[in-house]
């Protein structure tokens, strides 16, 4: 006992065989690591291995190699579904960047400029986020109802009757309507992140810029945005991942087929119905579904990495 004590109190630079205390510390992450491995690493690797096999229902069949991937990219209707969904995911991302994050920045900037009741606004914008996505989907389905929904009723009241339409029933408007509902849902979170970024800019810099006569848009473009790049990167990556994983709202509002005629289909919805089939229990294709999941994983992981790298480079400049 005494011996170890002496060793522990020994000065740092003194060479020793093994520092038990330091070694012991490395054991502490094990529980967390185990959970991480079991629930994150293992499923990813499992999905990867599943994608290489043929499946009959839940039974693993023959080894196919990249067969499922070949099917996914070359066989009708899967290849059409894939590119169609991918395009929708990209559209989802662009629209969210413009509407959700664009408006969120304006709101965050207004709050940052010390309006009265800033705290109240912050809370109000965040409120939708507290609802379950399924509830949000249900609410917007009601609002967008073609015959008695609030949106069409409002348009009729203000004399824009010709604008009223079955928003969720027409392929041209359905996806946009869902994305805008999602913007409404996600805007509070974006405001919080961007506001944190604004607060991280030191007051002296802003003061100095103002004294130099930098004002308005110039101030935002040349001083504020570059200095809050961290937050912009975070919200961009978040939005990107969210847009490419978009599932709940589409499923809640348009079902597992991305109706009408696949106009609201996304990769995750396509994955869901491919892997698990419809509720009547038919048409499950675990192998093909896993191949799609693996592809989705690589799309998200690689593009997120590219984003981070690009933004970091800009940040340093």
């Amino acid at each position, binding site marked *: 006992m005494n011996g170890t004590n002496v060793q522990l109190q020994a000065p740092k630079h003194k060479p020793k065989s093994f520092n038990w205390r330091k070694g012991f510390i490395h054991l502490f992450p094990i529980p967390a690591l185990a959970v991480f491995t079991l629930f994150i690493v293992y499923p990813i690797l499992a999905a990867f291995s599943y994608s290489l096999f043929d499946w009959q229902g839940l039974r693993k069949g023959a080894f196919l190699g990249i067969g499922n991937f070949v099917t996914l990219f070359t066989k009708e*209707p899967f290849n059409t579904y894939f590119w169609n969904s991918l395009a929708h995911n990209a559209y989802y991302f662009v629209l969210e960047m413009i509407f959700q994050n664009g408006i969120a920045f304006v709101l965050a900037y207004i709050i940052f400029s010390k309006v009265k009741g800033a705290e109240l606004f912050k809370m109000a914008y965040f409120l939708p986020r507290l609802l379950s996505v399924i509830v949000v989907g249900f609410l917007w389905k009601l609002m967008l109802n073609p*015959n008695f929904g609030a949106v069409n009723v409002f348009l009729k009241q203000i004399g824009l009757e010709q604008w009223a339409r079955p928003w969720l029933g027409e392929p041209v408007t359905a996806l946009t309507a869902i994305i805008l509902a999602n913007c409404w849902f996600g805007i509070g979170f974006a405001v919080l992140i961007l506001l944190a970024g604004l607060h991280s800019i030191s007051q002296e810099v802003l003061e100095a810029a103002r004294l130099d006569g930098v004002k308005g848009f110039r101030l935002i473009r040349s001083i504020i945005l570059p200095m809050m790049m961290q937050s912009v990167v975070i919200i961009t990556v978040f939005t990107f991942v969210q847009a490419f994983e978009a599932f709940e709202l589409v499923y809640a509002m348009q079902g597992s*087929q991305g109706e009408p*005629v696949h106009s609201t289909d996304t990769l995750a919805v396509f994955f869901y119905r491919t892997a698990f089939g*419809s509720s*009547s229990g038919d*048409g499950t294709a675990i192998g093909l579904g896993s191949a799609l999941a693996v592809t989705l994983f690589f799309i998200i992981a690689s593009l997120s990495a590219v984003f981070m790298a690009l933004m970091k480079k800009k940040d340093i400049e």
Partner: protein
Amino acid sequence: MKHVSLVLAAILAASLAGCSSSNTPAATTAPKDNKGEASTQPQQKVKLTMGSWRTEDKDAYEKIIKEYQKKNPNVEIEFKPTKNTEYNTVLNTALQTGSGPDIIQLRPYAAGIALADAGYLEPLDSVKGLSVMSKDTLAAATGKDGKIYGVPTVFSSTQIFYNKKLFKKFNIEEPKTWDDLIKAADTLKQNKVTPFAFGSKEGWILSLTHGALGPGFYGANDFVSKITSGQTNFKDKAFVDSIQMMQGLTKYFPDNYVGISMDDMRNLFVTEQAGMMVMGDWELAVMKKMNPALEMDVFPVPAPAGGKATVTTWVDGSFSVNKASKNKAEAMKFIEFMTTKDFGQLVANELMKPSTIPGVEAADPIVTKISKFANSISTPYMFVVHFSSGNPTTKVTLETALQGMYLNKQTPQDVVEEVQKSADTWFKPAGK
């Protein structure tokens, strides 16, 4: 990674061992303090479990089980439903590890038959009561080997619901021919009532409506037996006609029907804004709850030019016995009970659904009427019974194509081409 999988395997093995030990039958721990009577009448109860996806039917089945126990006090049956969307996964996993409920509610047709073909189920050849059911009905649970593996209990049936008050107000009789039906729709439209509560936003409504209205045009059972034996295909003029008929009905649909979903359809009908609705029997209970004052009734779908009226049915699920069950004899006895008129009666009253047993009178006159049609003038829901395979299924292909047709993106001819293309990827006619 090898270590992780080893650890996982160990955990799995441990949990499986746990499962199987809890599944050992109560019989092994027979009580020893039974006095003299013990030898003739064993006191221990046999415990059976019943797996199902119908969480909403729990109360009804518990009532039915209670009735059964009155005559069979030695068994205890627990109805243990799993969430609809998770049932298949849970059941498949359990069966693969040699466990699972003693009595299994089987999904109808292909999905359930797959379990029989995989050897998880006990054949029910010894169940005498099955003889009252038609071959079409039993097909829902007949394996590839020709043996029957499940007792179909209730039908789902589609017909036309109508508002009695509105029909009376505008002097409309229950239509007997297709022309009558169109005339009725015209009359309703002239009086500013939506003839059909219908919407094309949800695909399943489209195949369901086609399944109900189509048979009169494609020739009901004759066409079904021809297409399943390979004598014809979907490009048959009769089938194209049935799709064209669907397109021709648009003027009788509500405004903005492309954006209308099931909830909106139901609302239109129960708030008396629409006169008719092509719908399944299961909506009866829901609509009654929403508007108890609604005076509604049903009629079978009339056929054009001399054809016979039909309702479209499919088996909603059947009950089977787990091959790995430790109490097969008792489970079989319950299965036998499910083929009796007593059971049919209970089902009709508790679930408010048409029983597969002919001649059952339900307390609700509409249920009785639907049961009567389902057991006499029915035609199978072709896309559920015969064309629900493929990935995506041929049924889903029809739905998406019809949706495209209602959005003016596709012609009836395109719809037919797509459906046939989907069927070609997997369907092999019975005779070939």
